[in-house]
């Protein structure tokens, strides 16, 4: 075994133990993009590539790099380490690779990377993750901590964090495409004995104009694969792009209009049975006892499985299983959280925030200037407390997984944002070697962060093992709503100090529940004295990443409170933002564009309101102007004008679609979204009591794209955080009611009020 091969084998061995990544393994996996840690696989020659080649290459294929393969017929296949949940990442990543490669788009397809460690994309480099965001010094420790966490969680293959384009695409796909092109040129130069500098590429061909010779990539593939791929190939400049920046039809769409697209729930196995489940209603409770005598006697029911914190009924049809489980009498253990309610949780938040204030026990995000003296000398001080409820993801496709356990090996069919994590988690739960777990990835009927958790896959695997038959587990809508990993309920308290001229002197904000991104509560505005800090106030309600994560609450808090500051300063909320963005021309330009396109200077009319917000998240700036009509207390959202600057829009229509989607997702939450806790458990159970925006509620959304040329940002999440504050600000203009708590449906907007105190 060569030294190289030995090193790689060691790295590979080290990867297989969950969480045990060594520095060597880390670097070995991430040496691609000149210091970038993201790539997940090395382009170096050696056994690692051969190992993956077995997984993705068919006979006659030549593997050029870990990210692209080309067959003898000239078909080029990108190997995309991200899952598809409708965000279009697989198409757009392929587009990035094909452009750098100068491939003929008609010959290019993709496969989703197999759930192998070689494709782990967990170690997200700090630079990519933050994408040039300005991070206050006080936050850096937190950011470093988060990166450490990410490194520890390396055995993941996650689609999330709006990272596909800005991390995998920029550091992986473009580099791999350019390297592949480079190898083709080297192969042609060698064959024709001409200098590389005389060769050009176009439409999957290398061209030597001087001698009028042309060779296709298909012809050159075998020769090209003998060359060492460059790990620093020259990337195109934007003006050289042929595919990036163009709207190409998404590959996944045709199958989604004919019913052919296969989601996790569509997996079919010979002899398959179906499972329905009831999980402990109070998070953390266990099965104490259950009586399934009558259930087992029902025709079609084959098994009742005790999973410890859940009971599953297995039957010959899902309908039979779901009906039968309703008859199982399950007793649950009591827990210390059996009396917890939304009310008690709110009281806890307020008490913990007060305690942190009194004891000075909070941790800082931002400490700038002299906040104390600013408040002491202020002509005016305003204060407000903002709150948001827990939120469920409510994916259209309820959680489900299909599993088969034979001869000590387990196969799982599901749609997951983290297929490699699913393999590791199933292996750990069933005490199997990773090699004995196979994951068959499917389309996801919505993800939004929920499908980065693999709880249903583990349950299905355990049921399949315990019953010895292939089982498809499907959660009911109620189970899906009541056993989510929730966007946390959060309270955030603000104080602002102003002088007699309406200058904003200080911004003081304390909140609880800090997750990611670390910079979510940071404001872009030039306020000299700032104190942004947080404390702990944990609950027993499971936390999960919910589209835009911490931005989903802080976007609302900071941008809605900013309008209160503007009112105190007696200034137009758009103009005050502008004024405090003097040193941020990129932000200011985008805000101006949204205001201009929305006609900010035009009167809005009686009973109507217009609100604005600006949000930077996941490397992308979004400014939104929302117009509402409030008629007899009913809010209708008429129009959203959105300006977005992602640095560069690789797929303008794809970006537009993500903005539309992000706005509607955020609007559902802002208008109606509320998960309540009563007696330790979730009250909501269906779309009837967890309503979402429907066709007749959906506003017109106009998206305007700015390609500023700054570092490329994400698309999946940045549209979501800014809609709630812009909506709240618009409702204030229309009604005089400050929306300080979400959802809006909590408020009675029938009467014009000036300064409501506690509304609920």
């Amino acid at each position, binding site marked *: 075994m060569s030294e190289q091969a030995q090193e790689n084998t060691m790295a590979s061995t080290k990867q297989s133990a969950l969480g045990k990544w060594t520095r060597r393994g880390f670097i070995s996996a991430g040496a691609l993009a000149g210091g970038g840690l993201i790539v997940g696989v090395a382009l170096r020659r050696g056994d690692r590539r051969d190992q993956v080649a077995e997984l993705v290459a068919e006979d006659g294929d030549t593997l050029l790099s870990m990210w692209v393969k080309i067959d003898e017929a000239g078909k080029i296949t990108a190997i995309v380490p991200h899952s598809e949940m409708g965000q279009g990442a697989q198409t757009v990543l392929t587009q990035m690779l094909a452009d750098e490669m100068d491939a003929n788009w008609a010959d290019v397809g993709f496969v989703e990377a197999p759930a192998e460690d070689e494709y782990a994309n967990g170690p997200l480099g700090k630079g990519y993750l933050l994408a040039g965001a300005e991070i206050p010094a006080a936050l850096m420790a937190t950011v470093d901590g988060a990166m450490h966490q990410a490194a520890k969680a390396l055995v993941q293959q996650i689609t999330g964090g709006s990272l596909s384009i800005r991390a995998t695409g920029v550091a992986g796909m473009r580099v791999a495409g350019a390297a592949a092109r480079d190898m083709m040129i080297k192969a042609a130069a060698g064959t024709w004995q001409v200098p590389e500098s005389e060769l050009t590429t176009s439409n999957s061909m290398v061209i030597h104009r001087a001698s009028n010779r042309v060779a296709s990539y298909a012809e050159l593939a075998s020769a090209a694969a003998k060359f060492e791929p460059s790990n620093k190939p020259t990337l195109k400049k934007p003006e050289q792009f042929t595919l990036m920046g163009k709207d190409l039809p998404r590959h996944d769409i045709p199958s989604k*209009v004919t019913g052919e697209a296969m989601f996790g729930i569509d997996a079919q196995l010979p002899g398959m049975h179906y499972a329905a489940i009831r999980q402990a209603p109070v998070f953390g409770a266990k099965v104490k006892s259950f009586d399934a005598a009558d259930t087992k006697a029902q025709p079609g029911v084959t098994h009742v499985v005790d999973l410890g914190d859940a009971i599953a009924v297995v039957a010959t049809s899902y309908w039979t299983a779901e009906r039968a489980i309703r008859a199982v009498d399950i007793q649950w253990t009591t827990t210390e959280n059996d009396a917890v309610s939304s009310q008690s949780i709110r009281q806890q938040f307020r008490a913990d925030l007060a305690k942190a204030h009194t004891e000075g026990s909070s941790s800082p995000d931002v400490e700038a200037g002299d906040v104390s003296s600013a408040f002491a000398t202020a002509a005016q001080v305003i204060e407000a407390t903002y709150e948001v409820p827990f939120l469920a993801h409510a994916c259209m496709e309820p959680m489900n997984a299909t599993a088969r356990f034979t001869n000590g090996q387990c196969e799982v069919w599901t749609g997951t944002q983290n297929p490699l994590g699913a393999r590791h988690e199933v292996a750990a739960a069933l005490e199997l070697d990773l090699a004995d777990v196979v994951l068959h990835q499917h389309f996801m009927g*919505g993800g939004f962060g929920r499908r980065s958790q693999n709880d249903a896959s583990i349950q299905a695997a355990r049921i399949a093992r315990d019953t010895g038959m292939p089982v498809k587990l499907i959660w009911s809508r109620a189970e899906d709503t009541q056993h989510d990993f929730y966007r946390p309920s959060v309270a955030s308290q603000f104080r602002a100090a102003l002088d007699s001229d309406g200058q904003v002197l200080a911004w003081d904000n304390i909140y609880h529940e800090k997750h990611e991104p670390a910079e979510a509560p940071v404001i872009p505005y030039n306020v000299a004295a700032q104190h942004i800090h947080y404390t702990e106030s944990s609950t027993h309600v499971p936390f999960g990443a919910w589209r835009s994560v911490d931005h989903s609450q802080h976007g609302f808090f900071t941008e809605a409170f900013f309008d209160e500051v503007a009112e105190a300063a007696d200034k137009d909320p758009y103009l005050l933002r502008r004024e405090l963005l003097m040193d941020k021309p990129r932000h200011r330009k985008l805000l101006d564009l949204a205001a201009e396109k929305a006609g900010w200077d035009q009167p809005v009319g009686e009973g109507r309101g217009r609100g604005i917000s600006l949000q930077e998240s996941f490397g992308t700036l979004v400014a939104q102007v929302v117009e509402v009509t409030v008629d007899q207390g009913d809010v209708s959202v008429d129009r959203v004008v959105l300006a977005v600057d992602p640095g560069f829009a690789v797929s303008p229509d794809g970006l537009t679609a993500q903005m539309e989607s992000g706005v509607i997702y955020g609007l559902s939450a802002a208008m109606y979204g509320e998960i309540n806790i009563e007696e330790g458990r979730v009250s909501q159970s269906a779309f009837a009591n967890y309503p979402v925006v429907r066709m007749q509620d959906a506003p017109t959304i106009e998206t305007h794209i700015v390609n500023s040329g700054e570092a490329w940002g994400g698309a999946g999440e940045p549209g979501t955080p800014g809609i709630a504050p812009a909506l709240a600000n618009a409702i204030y203009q229309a009604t005089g009611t400050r929306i300080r708590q979400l959802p809006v449906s909590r408020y009675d907007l029938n009467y014009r009020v000036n300064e409501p105190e506690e509304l609920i």
Partner: protein
Amino acid sequence: MITFRLNGTEQSLDVDPSMPLLWAIRENLGLTGTKFGCGQAQCGACTVHLNGAAIRSCVTPVAAAQGSEVTTIEGLAASEGELHPLQQAWIDEQAPQCGYCQSGQIMSAAALLATNPNPDDAAIDAAMSGNICRCGMYQRIRKSIKRAAGSEAVVGVFDPQAATEEVKHV
């Protein structure tokens, strides 16, 4: 034994007559384009046509299909290998994201166009209000419906009642 025509082919099933049509289509007949979303007729993912009308198959007992014509997304196009104008419009507008709700959306839209070939916004709202899209693609769905509305083929969607009435007129 319950007998009905599914996408033009007669099917006979020996199942519990109270079982929702959704599960008969998905599990017994193996057509998985029709989706389970809520089981309570609140989201529309399970929408199919029963004698040309859009229904929620998750709450419709399979017995209700006895002797009827059931059309699913797989049988919507006039013939195999072709697309219904709505399916083409959905592609042209790049309407789906995750795609899970889209079978139901398209079936609701097809039932609408079959009786109202040029619906206005209010008619679209009314016909589509039962179909949730969590990816929020309502604007694109609306545009897709309007794009297909111009096409002649949309009125050709099977509707036995309309067909019977036509015969009567003759």
